């Protein structure tokens, strides 16, 4: 039949040609959360049919990333930012009666504000603002009884994009994201008409990924680190993929095109671009900050206005890495993970969940992006359009101001039975998500 012939032809085509196109519009596939489905305010999250969430815990504090130990204990990082956050450190949680709600909750490292958490060889790695720590456990203890070791320190103190997120590969290398300390490396911080600095001094020890020995102790960025990739504004979401043997990350794109360059950008355009970019981490790669940004509406990399751009002029193809996927501007990708469990339907296997904290830099237009999305993979690249996996966090249809959001999703992790955990910053909430098929 003509029809199925076409489908087969398309399939062959899409298998033969890896999909490198970027796709950034919100796509409502049959698998997305049904926008008309009811929403339970108390729960604070809405999922596609067949998935069920419970409020695992409500923790007082500014929540960040999550990690799960093999025994099912969940670890939740808390930080303090600009006076937000009443607690800091790591919260350890267990649900001993398996009702979806944590009933054993303990805290440690309560003097260290941090974001990133990941297990490696049963040690818990924790990224603060200036260090990566390693906690070791004696047997099945929930809270480590010995003090942590510093794996790497010596990162510059900075107040913007300060979270040291990281990924660890299968050869004991740890790749640490050191964010850019500014929006776009202007001579005068966020000042209209101020030119961009070239070279940008903020790329010397920041705005890139540095590689260290994950088993090492007391390493220093300047003496023990090697600059692995540059031009990365802030790769909050960064993960090793054990199947494809590479690190994936998403960056937070720059802000304020309209407020800084009203002659080139409208408020509407500036609310949608630049893209939030998803990349593969490549040794020696340059990802284009601060000299350029990606515009998914034009599907090209644009010269930043601080460096003479006008919103249309592109940079030479090949100068900087091209994203493997691009998402709408200002959505703030804060975490990602690949699903390797078997609890969810098979189409989720090896695809990526991405957590978007949600925008602030769209004002005066309504804020967007407060959701978790899923993007299926084909081999090592995103395969098709993405779908909304979890929304409803803001508690309102139209969000004027980020401060009105009840929850802002920020971290994600997979448990030993293939269940997911999602965390929220402002509310300190953690949800557990299971697939029930109902």
């Amino acid at each position, binding site marked *: 039949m003509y029809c199925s012939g076409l489908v087969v032809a398309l399939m062959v085509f899409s298998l033969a040609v890896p999909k490198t196109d970027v796709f950034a519009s919100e796509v409502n596939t049959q698998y997305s959360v049904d926008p008309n489905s009811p929403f339970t305010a108390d729960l604070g999250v809405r999922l596609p049919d067949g998935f069920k969430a419970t409020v695992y815990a409500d923790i007082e504090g*500014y929540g960040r990333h999550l990690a799960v130990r093999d025994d099912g204990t969940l670890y939740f990082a808390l930080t303090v*930012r*600009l*006076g*937000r*956050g009443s607690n800091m450190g790591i919260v350890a949680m267990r649900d001993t009666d398996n009702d979806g709600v944590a009933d054993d909750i303990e805290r440690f490292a309560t003097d260290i504000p941090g974001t990133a958490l990941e297990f490696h060889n049963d040690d818990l790695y924790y990224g603060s603002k200036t260090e990566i720590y390693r906690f070791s456990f004696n047997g099945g203890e929930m809270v480590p009884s010995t003090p942590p070791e510093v794996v790497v320190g010596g990162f510059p103190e*900075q*107040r*913007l994009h300060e979270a040291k997120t990281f990924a660890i590969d299968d050869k004991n290398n740890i790749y640490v994201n050191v964010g850019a*300390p*500014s929006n776009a490396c202007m001579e*005068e*911080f*966020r*000042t*209209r008409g101020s030119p961009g600095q070239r070279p940008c001094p903020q790329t010397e020890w920041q705005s890139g990924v540095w590689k260290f020995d994950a088993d090492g102790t007391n390493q220093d960025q300047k003496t023990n680190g090697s600059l692995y990739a540059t031009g990365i504004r802030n790769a909050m979401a960064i993960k090793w993929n054990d199947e494809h043997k590479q690190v994936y990350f998403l960056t937070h794109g720059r*802000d*304020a095109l309209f*407020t800084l360059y009203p002659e080139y950008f409208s408020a509407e355009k500036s609310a949608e671009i630049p893209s939030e970019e998803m990349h593969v981490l490549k040794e020696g790669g340059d990802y284009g900050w601060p000299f350029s940004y990606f515009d998914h509406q034009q599907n090209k990399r644009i010269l930043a206005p601080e460096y003479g751009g006008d919103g249309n002029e592109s940079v030479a193809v090949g100068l900087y890495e091209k994203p493997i996927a691009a998402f709408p501007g200002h959505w703030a990708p804060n975490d990602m993970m690949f699903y390797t469990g078997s609890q969810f339907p098979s189409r989720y296997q090896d695809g990526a969940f991405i957590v978007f904290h949600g925008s*602030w*830099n769209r*004002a*005066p237009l309504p804020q967007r992006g407060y959701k978790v999305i899923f993007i299926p993979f084909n081999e090592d690249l995103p395969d098709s359009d993405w779908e909304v996996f979890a929304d409803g966090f803001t508690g309102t249809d139209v969000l*004027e*101001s*980020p*401060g*009105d959001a009840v929850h*802002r999703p920020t971290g994600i992790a997979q448990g030993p039975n293939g269940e997911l955990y999602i965390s929220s*910053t*402002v509310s300190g909430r953690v949800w557990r998500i299971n697939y029930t098929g109902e």
Partner: protein
Amino acid sequence: MARAFLLILILAACSGCLTVIDNPQVMVDGRSLYERECLACHMSNGGGVPGMAPPLVGSPWVAGGRDALVGYVLTGGFSPQVLMSRFDFLSDQDMSVLLTYVRKTFGENGTTISTDQVARIRSEINTLN
């Protein structure tokens, strides 16, 4: 330096306060200046962005001494500008209108700020630099 300057500002509480532009047009102009310069981070309701930009509603800088508020906004927080830029490029007139709007909209008692006051603080900052 920044601390010393802060102290001076706080001690130099406004005595013989100045005559000000206090008419409805101030609120209209002040609002459009606010929308152009401040709204992106502090939001139209002055609520800020949790963990990123503090609210102006309930802020001691907004409700407190006027000199301190002028100094804060002119210098971008008295410290190296890492989170908020400085706004010393605004004229005395624009700054007084803008901050009058900010105080009346987000502050508790909402008294006005005059151009003379902005000019005085600006020159104090310049002599300290």
